[in-house]
């Protein structure tokens, strides 16, 4: 199972390395959105720092939607989908493997966006560094939820527009918990409960994905 997960993740990352969508499209989109957020908030540094966690996680969510859409489209064509079905790969391994690849991609973009947020929105450096583990936890949750909802949307002819409508409500707990945890690190506040919420969401999406991904593939 672990070998299959790694093979699926390696394949998705190899395709990403070839196409460079993350580098030339997703990352610039995220950084431009972050700059626009900074401009929209205005020049006051304390206001920017106060709003930075929320703005950062909104940008992360938008970036995640792009990556999810891209990843779920890899097997969208009928020929590719059939070829992969014929291989008969364990659906649990496909779910976790694609989640792992997405986590790797989102972690890279997320770290770059966090650095951008620190510079552009005047976030204290110590808060940005301390929030990194929380960001990775939130990214892992977004990745597993993204693979699941990407698969659901992929079965529709309008996957690109259906995905945000389906996924954004599911991302809300991750966005809220990530933002609250980040804010708690900037202005001291309760952190554990938000980390716990992210952990529960990660576990829930892992269980649901392992149970349902095979059925979603068949549908």
């Amino acid at each position, binding site marked *: 199972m672990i070998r299959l997960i790694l093979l699926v993740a390696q394949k998705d990352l*190899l395709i990403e390395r*070839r196409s460079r969508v993350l580098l030339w499209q997703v990352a610039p989109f995220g950084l431009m959105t972050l700059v626009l957020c900074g401009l929209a908030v205005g020049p006051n540094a304390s206001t920017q720092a106060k709003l930075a966690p929320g703005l950062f996680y909104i940008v992360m969510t938008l970036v995640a939607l792009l990556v999810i859409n891209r990843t779920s489209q890899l097997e969208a*064509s009928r*020929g590719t989908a059939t070829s992969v*079905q014929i*291989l*008969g790969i364990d659906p649990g391994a496909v779910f976790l493997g694609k989640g792992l690849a997405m986590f790797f991609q989102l972690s890279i973009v997320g770290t770059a966006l966090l650095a951008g947020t620190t510079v552009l929105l005047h976030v204290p450096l110590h808060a940005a560094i301390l929030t990194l583990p929380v960001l990775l936890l939130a990214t892992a949750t977004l990745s597993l939820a993204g693979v699941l909802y990407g698969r659901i949307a992929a079965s529709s002819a309008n996957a690109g527009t259906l995905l945000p409508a389906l996924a954004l409500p599911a991302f809300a707990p991750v966005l809220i918990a990530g933002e609250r945890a980040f804010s708690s690190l900037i202005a001291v506040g309760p952190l554990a409960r938000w980390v716990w919420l992210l952990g529960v969401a990660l576990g829930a999406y892992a269980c649901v994905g392992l149970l349902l991904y095979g059925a979603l593939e068949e549908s």
Partner: protein
Amino acid sequence: MVVASLCDVVVTTGNFPLLSGVDLTLEGSTTYVITGPNGAGKTSLLRLLAGLEVPSRGSGTVLGFDICSAERRELRRHVGWLGHETSFYPDLSPTENLLFAARTTGADVDSIYSALDRVGLTHRAKVPLKSLSAGQQRRVSIAWFLVRRPQLWLMDEPFASLDDEGRVLISELIVAAQTGGATVVLTSHGALPAETLATSIVMVGGRIAEVAS
């Protein structure tokens, strides 16, 4: 030896029937060619035999696997599939695609290179699949047959997009597969090469109208 047995199988999409009460028995070491007009159900029958379609009525087994149950997923690992569309991942090279397929299924990785050589793609083995012509992309799928050596070969219009050399290659492989004990089922609109002796299955309106040796 019976390879596949279908009894009154119905396959629908929405309310539209793709297959309407198909009864069919396929024997081992035999080549079958399915003919019929557009929309007759040729591709749907191939997909059913591959475990890619779920019957809404009837029963059947293919290679000993029940096609009406979750055994369909296991069945797929034992069939070879050549479809109309580009298969595998367009951004990966033929070698990378076949390596992924072989590693995930436990097939012989070393045989990939000889398979690519056999289908005449050694010189294009490392370029992205999307850079290859339609015929070359079909050859990659054929190379996978050689690596996997399935018991049941399912080929949808295998001669489409191929040049004369490619058609000869496919014909040779079909004959070799049949000689080696595999069962080959293919669809075709045109006449088959003379060396490809096949049992003919004629389909009309989602039903089997005639089976003739």
